[in-house]
């Protein structure tokens, strides 16, 4: 990792303080004011909007393979997604995804 200790602590503290302020916003300061419906509608999709973008390069061109397509990672990601959709349970999705990653890696590698 290419950060100095000071930079790392700036990141940790800024993320900690920022996250607290987001959580405190309405409880602490803004009180009972209603959020406009259009804003609520957008906030509902923050996590599901950002996390898939995060995943995409990690699955399609992972650093560990030098950025080339890796059938093992793509298959394991598909298994994790499938199990997550089916069971609606994040823990089972992780178990299935990492399990198939290791199993396929052992089989093909």
């Amino acid at each position, binding site marked *: *990792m290419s*950060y100095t200790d000071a*930079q790392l*602590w700036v*990141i*940790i*503290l*800024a*993320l*900690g*303080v*920022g*996250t*607290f302020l*987001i*959580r*405190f916003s*309405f*409880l*602490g300061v803004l009180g*009972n004011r209603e*959020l406009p419906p259009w804003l609520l*509608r*957008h*906030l*509902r*999709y*923050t*996590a*599901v*909007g*950002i*996390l*898939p*973008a*995060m*995943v*995409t*390069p*990690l*699955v*399609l061109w*992972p*650093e*560990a393979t030098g950025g080339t397509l890796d059938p093992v*990672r793509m298959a*394991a*990601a598909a298994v*994790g997604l499938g*199990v*997550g959709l089916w069971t*609606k349970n*994040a*823990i089972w*999705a*992780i178990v299935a*995804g*990492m399990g198939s*990653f*290791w199993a396929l890696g052992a089989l093909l590698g």
Partner: protein
Amino acid sequence: MSASSPRAAYLRGLRTALPFVIVVAPFGLLFGVVGTEAGLDIAQVMGFTVLVIAGASQFTALQLMADGAPTLIVVASALAVNLRMAMYSASLAPYLGQAPFWQRALAAYMNVDQTYALGHAEYEARPGMTVAERMAFFFGTATPIIPVWVGATAVGIWVGAALPPALGLDFAVPITFIALIAPALRTLAHVAAAVTSVVMAILLGFLPWNLWLLAAGLAAMIVGAEVERRMEARR
């Protein structure tokens, strides 16, 4: 109402939250493992876990740091993942807004996915609760959740130091994200947002400083909200 009812509410919150420890522990453990493998020292991994208490944003920060993104981009992207908590805060405010300042501040610090969901469900189911009882219930749910999150991370640091790098734990990060996304794809709008997010990540991958992440997230939020609006208009 008897004087002991906040106490009863606290204990009820604690009991309700206990099973969710099973959900929280593996994520904390994984963050400890992956953070250590990424090169953070013990204090830094624990700093993240104690100060932020939000797994998805912590993993986001970790991944962007592995990519060497600028400090500002790391913080902005990880905070964007947590924006949903403004919604949590807004939906708890009508129930807890009259409580003393220090209690609201403490509740805000502990306002994570699980405590929020359990608290909000309880307040809707029992409209007659006093503010003191509601606060007591909320702190009851936090009592097992927060320490287990922190403790599991500490165990993860210890485990991570002992694991061989050949395990390919770098892949645990995308798998964890996929595991968080999949159960959240409840409606067409959620699916549309997720698909937009993936497509934009591919199309905008050329943008510098990992800006594609924020751009893809913004586009996906707009698409999700718009699909939801149209679905509702059709009803």
